[in-house]
């Protein structure tokens, strides 16, 4: 079969190879199977990426073709490998550690995409906070695993043996093939129409952002030329962006009483950083969402506190007392603390303390 006949289906074949590889990895088996699975998985992932990019190259007809940037590619592969290992590892703690690896590589890709703030935010929040919480819980909720025997890795039964692997992998890779087709296909109407921004558009947006930050602009201009103050152009804008992407700012310099007007070119260094643009966007375009996000976090805190309470069951009298009503029974209004209290749920040592018995029952726990 000539290669050209298969290549339209390169995406699908890559997906299938990757599926097979993942399947071999996911079952608990001997090392040979695992090696084979690893090789297949790597091959599949590489093929997939290559097919995606090749499609891009073909669309270019060779012009404006570029080479694959190496560092992001390596980081991508590390991310995929880490994800695969996370999914197949029988010990949950290791899986969490591999997840941290995935997070770090993804952060690296963010860097390659010039989203520095996001990269470090990801590392700080995800790897630093969320995953540490996961680790805590994993260590608290562990059951005694079976010991590793020879080549078979140890772990609890529900960690070692996957659940319906065939069905899951089939479904997953069906999705992979369809998503891949919709994103990377060049032979149908499915190619993404969203054009990457042109240089002109990109430059325009970037310098508009700087315009929206007046103090920053003033500081920049002052640094460029002492005592310079930006003045609007004839069209009312402060920064003029040319077609090739270069920008300049119209300034007024007051130099010992002499007022002169200059056009200062702005270089790429003076463009706002990613952090600044993200901040600007957050505050100017999405203030409501910002507030909502904070509310979500507040609710999460409340939820966590509520979940962590110890369950206390009150007797009837105590309930009525708590509600401010009269007691009914003729019993001693101060019964001893041992009766009428049951702690719901477990008896194991929970990390959360805080039985809050309201009202007159305060202090009993």
């Amino acid at each position, binding site marked *: 079969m000539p290669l050209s006949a298969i290549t339209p289906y390169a995406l699908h074949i890559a997906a299938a190879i990757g599926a097979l590889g993942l399947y071999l990895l996911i079952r608990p088996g001997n090392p040979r199977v695992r090696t084979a699975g690893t090789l297949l998985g790597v091959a599949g992932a590489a093929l997939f990426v290559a097919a995606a990019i090749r499609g891009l190259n073909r669309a270019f007809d060779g012009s404006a073709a570029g080479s694959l940037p190496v560092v992001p590619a390596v980081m*991508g592969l590390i991310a995929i490998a880490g994800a695969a290992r996370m999914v197949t590892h029988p010990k949950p703690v290791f899986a969490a550690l591999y997840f941290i690896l995935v997070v770090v590589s993804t952060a690296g890709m963010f860097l390659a995409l010039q989203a520095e703030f996001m990269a470090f935010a990801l590392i700080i929040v995800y790897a630093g906070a969320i995953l540490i919480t996961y680790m805590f819980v994993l260590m608290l909720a562990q059951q005694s695993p079976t010991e590793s025997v020879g080549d078979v890795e140890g772990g609890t039964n529900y960690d070692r043996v996957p659940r319906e692997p065939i069905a899951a992998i089939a479904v997953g890779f069906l999705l992979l093939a369809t998503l891949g087709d919709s994103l990377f296909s060049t032979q149908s109407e499915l190619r993404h129409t969203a054009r990457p921004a042109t240089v002109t558009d990109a430059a325009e947006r970037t310098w508009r952002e700087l315009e929206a930050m007046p103090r920053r602009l003033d500081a920049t201009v002052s640094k460029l030329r002492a005592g310079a103050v930006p003045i609007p152009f004839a069209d009312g804008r402060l920064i003029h962006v040319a077609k090739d992407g270069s920008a300049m700012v119209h300034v007024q310099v007051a130099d010992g009483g002499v007022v002169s007007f200059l056009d200062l070119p702005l270089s*790429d260094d003076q463009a706002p950083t990613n952090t600044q643009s993200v901040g600007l966007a957050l505050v100017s375009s999405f203030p409501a969402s910002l507030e909502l*996000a904070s509310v979500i976090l507040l609710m999460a805190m409340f939820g966590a506190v509520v979940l962590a309470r110890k369950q206390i069951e009150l007797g009837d009298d105590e309930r009525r007392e708590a509600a401010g009503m009269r007691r009914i029974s003729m019993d001693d209004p101060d019964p001893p603390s041992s009766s009428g209290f049951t702690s719901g749920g477990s008896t194991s040592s929970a990390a959360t303390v805080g039985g809050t018995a309201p009202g007159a029952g305060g202090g009993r726990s």
Partner: protein
Amino acid sequence: MILRPAPILAETAVSAAGVYAASPQLLQLSLAVSVLLFVIGLVGFLTRRNMIMMFLCTELMMQAAALAFVTFSRMHMNTSGQVFVIFILTVAAAEAALALGLVVLLYRKKETLSIEAWSELKEC
């Protein structure tokens, strides 16, 4: 919903510093990695029986979504995508906290993290 075909314009230039635009190959790569991560996360969610592992795979899927968002944000030079990633992080954090609390409570009930212990919605 018919997407019109459009070639990637040749005037997309690669600038040295890469400030203004990103190379198409990088974008394709990011999208491909995002899709692969998502699918791996889905497979993991469907196969793992440990409740915490399931949530971890969910987090992986959210990671993939975040990567896709950032890719598109870079593609269109629009910071809205990255703002949305912030919100994804927020929600992921909130959800992780609550989910882990619930998982702990469930663990206390049945002394096991296996999700098959909680199959009371079944029909028979």
